């Protein structure tokens, strides 16, 4: 658990430093994801510990959004003043994004999914 968490945090750290140093317009954790993916390819896959800890974190992804989400209480006045715009803009744009991505992907990807 601790080794795996260390690995994830070190990957994020490398990602953060690389992104800033090279001026890549990508957030540190995403560069860290690429670093870990590279490591996994190089080592031929994760060990059991990394697999368990990583999947444990992914299962609780929702919890990790809660603190930022509670920040809604600092924005209630803005949301209240623009409720109609938000009530339309967020669902409609989300729906359009889902449909466009899904349809284009399914149309273009004619390769068989053999698993």
């Amino acid at each position, binding site marked *: 658990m601790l080794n795996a968490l260390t690995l*994830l945090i070190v990957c*994020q750290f490398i*990602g953060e430093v690389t992104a800033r140093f090279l001026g890549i*317009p*990508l957030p540190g*954790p*995403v560069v860290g*994801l*690429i*670093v*870990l993916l590279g490591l*996994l*390819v190089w080592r031929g*896959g994760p060990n059991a510990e*990394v*697999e368990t*800890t*990583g*999947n444990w*974190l*992914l*299962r609780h*992804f*929702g*919890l*990790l*959004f*809660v*603190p*930022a*989400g*509670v*920040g*809604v*209480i*600092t*924005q209630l006045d*803005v949301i209240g003043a*623009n409720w*109609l*715009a*938000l009530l*339309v*803009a*967020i669902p409609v*744009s*989300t729906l359009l*994004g*889902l*449909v*466009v*991505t*899904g349809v284009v*992907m*399914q*149309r*273009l*990807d004619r390769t068989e*999914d053999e*698993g």
Partner: protein
Amino acid sequence: MEKIFHLWVYLETTPLLGLAVTLVVWHLAGMLANRLGNAPLANPMLLSVIMLSCLLIATDTPYSAYFQGAQYVHFLLGPATVALALPMYANLRRISRSARAIIPALLAGSVVAASSAMLLARWLGAPSVVVRSLGPKSVTTPIAMGIAEQIGGQPSLAAVFVLLTGLTSIILIPPTMKLFRIKDMRAQGLAAGMAGHGLATARMLLISETAGAFGGLAIGLNGLITAIIVPLLATFLAP
């Protein structure tokens, strides 16, 4: 009574309270969601945010005091994003086989989602700061906050929009995929990750590892695409 008051004042100054209350409420929300049959809106995250927000308002606790403790949970968003490399690695062969479809699908979805959100909000009279904060709403929280700040939006507002977008996607994905006959799990995962970032991807991961892998890929690539196109869109759509 005075003793309780002193205890409260003490607890308010330590990160322990914010952290403990977040974890306990998350646990309660999970039980409540289960009891409600895991209906789309009975999402543990949404329930937690509602309960905690009510609690903070009722006890007149400032968000900054709460976040002192909750930041330890918030911090794990970074390592969890890194961990999305795991389902991606497990599906690397399939991802590279579909690369020629993935890039145009993400580009199209990203441009449509961001520009339609900004256009609609502007058309319905939202001020520029709100329109600009809506631009990066489909990407994962840390990225969205960074982009919002860069283009003159409000990072905390962007974080709320990210959350609302993730929840909306979770609700919209099943009927939309059915209606538009998007059956391929690779396409479903990619759409979920593009439109609903980690929140929708984590949900897809429960259904199919393939969808989770393509979702993880979409989060990363969409972060890059959004970081490039939203500043451009903002100059046109939110002058």
